[in-house]
């Protein structure tokens, strides 16, 4: 497999919006790129967002364009379900060890879905943050690329796997697939492994995991999405009741020495956006309250903040709530705290509390080799700045391979 890449190849680790951008920008400059992604599909975390702030446009729209760029550009080679286990070497000459998990489905797959119909087992759906379940033979989501099913490893060796194999008319199910380890060469490595939401259960006073109606902002995003677990209905987990009166709690895990020291940048804007989802769903009956320390609607995001401030269904309280309790009878959440602008104590009852969860680096940078971090692997960034960052990282990678090429010639 060493031949799939050379010292002229740019290895991009991570197939989210940052990794795809770095890969495509380099490829469109004429460079050879190997894009490796741990999950079965490209698209990363942005594919799990319903809409972006501040335009309220759809992330899959940009994903579609990037996928089309990718489909038409043979400079990029994509490997999914491939995880980097080791990076060695130096600029111009890296040796990278990849571990490729078995997908149990080969390129014959047409995405017809017969395997999913045949399989009985269900597993939690990580593309909905495990809010619902899906078949153990699955296409991650409608925009998944490669458009190829996956057999979850949990059914390998079970009758379900055999059922899937039998159901496939195209010989696409290959139960003999094994985990592979391979080593590839690269001239430069772009590290675009993205972020993960901070573990909300660690923010104990907010009772995530103890109270059903305390959820995270990424989960809320799935609730609002018509393709999410509720079909886009903003309802609360405990009883499916419409959640009209919602508390959005900022700095859930961020700006906190007990959790993440940094500000995660995106959460204020995400919550401002979420208030508009609530408004769209429930009109004047919507009630959103944002509990904040500072609203960080930086630069021209201020326009969006201004728009939300003008929305009568949205209230702002300068306060980090001290704790959340549950009202047993109604299942409502009760936020206890103090509005510090002047000192007003509250015990505010809401249908649902949404924790604007902090952003944590998903995978640490390699210890032994220098790589170019891009996107949220580099810093807490929004999508726009992630793309900016990965475009810059692409150039840094190009500089290395060009230098190597000049040195060789």
């Amino acid at each position: 497999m060493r031949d799939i890449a050379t010292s002229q190849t740019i290895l991009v680790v991570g197939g989210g919006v940052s990794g795809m951008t770095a890969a495509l920008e380099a490829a469109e400059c004429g460079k050879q790129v190997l894009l490796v992604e741990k999950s079965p599909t490209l698209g990363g975390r942005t594919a799990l967002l319903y809409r972006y702030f501040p335009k309220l446009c759809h992330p899959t729209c940009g994903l579609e364009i990037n996928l089309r760029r990718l489909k038409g550009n043979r400079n990029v080679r994509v490997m999914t379900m491939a995880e980097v286990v080791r990076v060695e070497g130096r600029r111009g000459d890296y040796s990278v060890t990849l571990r490729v998990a078995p997908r149990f489905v080969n390129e014959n797959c047409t995405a017809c879905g017969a395997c999913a119909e045949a399989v009985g087992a269900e597993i939690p759906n990580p593309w909905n943050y495990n809010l619902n379940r899906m078949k153990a033979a699955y296409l991650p989501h409608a925009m998944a690329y490669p458009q190829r099913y996956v057999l979850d490893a949990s059914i390998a060796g079970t009758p379900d796997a055999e059922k899937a194999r039998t159901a496939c008319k195209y010989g696409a199910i290959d139960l003999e697939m094994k985990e592979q380890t391979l080593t590839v060469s690269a001239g430069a490595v772009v590290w675009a492994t993205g972020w993960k939401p901070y573990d909300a259960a660690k923010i104990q006073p907010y009772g995530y995991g103890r109270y059903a109606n305390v959820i995270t902002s990424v989960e809320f995003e799935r609730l609002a999405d018509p393709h999410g677990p509720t079909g886009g209905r903003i309802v609360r987990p405990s009883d499916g009741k419409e959640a009209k009166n919602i508390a959005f709690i900022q700095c859930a895990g961020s700006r906190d020495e007990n959790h993440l020291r940094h500000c995660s940048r995106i959460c204020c804007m995400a919550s401002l956006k979420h208030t508009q989802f609530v408004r769209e769903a429930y009109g004047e009956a919507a009630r959103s309250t944002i509990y904040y320390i500072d609203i960080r609607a930086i630069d021209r995001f201020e326009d969006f903040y201004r728009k939300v401030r003008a929305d009568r269904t949205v209230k702002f309280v300068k306060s980090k709530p001290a704790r959340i309790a549950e009202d047993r009878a109604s299942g409502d959440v009760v936020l206890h705290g103090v509005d510090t602008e002047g000192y007003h104590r509250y015990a505010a009852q809401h249908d649902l509390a949404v924790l604007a969860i902090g952003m944590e680096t998903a995978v640490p940078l390699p210890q032994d080799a220098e790589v170019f971090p891009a996107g949220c692997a580099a810093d807490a960034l929004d999508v726009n700045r992630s793309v900016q960052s990965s475009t810059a990282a692409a150039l840094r990678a190009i500089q290395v391979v060009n230098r190597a090429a000049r040195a060789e010639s």
Partner: protein
Amino acid sequence: MKKEYAFYPGCSSQLRGSASNYLTSVNSMCQTLEVKMTPIPDWNCCGASIGYAGSGELARHVMNARNFALSEKHLPGQDVVATCAACWLGAKETKQKLDASRALMEDTNEALKEAGLRYEAKTEVRHMVEVLIEDIGYEEIRKHVVKPLEGIKFAGYVGCQTNRPFGIAGESFENPMYLDKLVETVGGEALVKYEQKVACCGGALAFSEPDKSQKQIKEIVEAAYDQGADMIVTPCPLCQANVEIYQAEINRKQGTKLDMPVMYYSQLLAVAYGAAPKQAGLDGHVIQPKKLQDIAVKVVPARK
């Protein structure tokens, strides 16, 4: 092998103190578990969190450091184990502060010199609960049970100072589980959804701000009733005293009929280990723990 510790009982748990039955039950429990607790000779008060207005900062640390120094001198190599939440917290805080600041350490030793002592910073400070969980373990605790506390529902009231700011390793501040686990280990029913688990009883302010504290206490007791508790169990002597003693006051002022026994975890273990009511300190309550007494007086067949 017998485990040995330097015991720091604290003012309330000493003989004739308001938590003397805590001491009794701890001794009984330790005997079963083969834990040897040797009181630090001539130990002094930790200063408690309420003495601040008179003490200032250094005096408080010096009080604790004196106990450490005595322990190092007379019981070298043994961890200091406190049973009282405030003693443990005060001691631990001092230790942390002194470890972090050389200047404070020097000042402390300068003062200690007046009492002819020196603190070498070797002491570890532990709570009795830590000894149970970390050094002995739930499995070992369970082994000695001869009278499982079947049929008794306990609301585990952890309170503040055994829980914050240090707490028991691996437990959360908002929902620590160890007390419930201890209850279950000795065969009782733990009411894990008890809401006031980590609420504050008012602490020392039960004296100075009785009405405000009694409001807290009332909620703590009522929440236990809500869960159908037979009794409350706690690791803290001040919590125990406040929550038990003031129920009568609350009843008098507000016409309520609170009558909820409040026990120490050590009493539960002692009874489960077969201790007689007196050995388990069950005679030290103003609200009688009827169901526990019933088990304690029951004669069990000798172990096979």
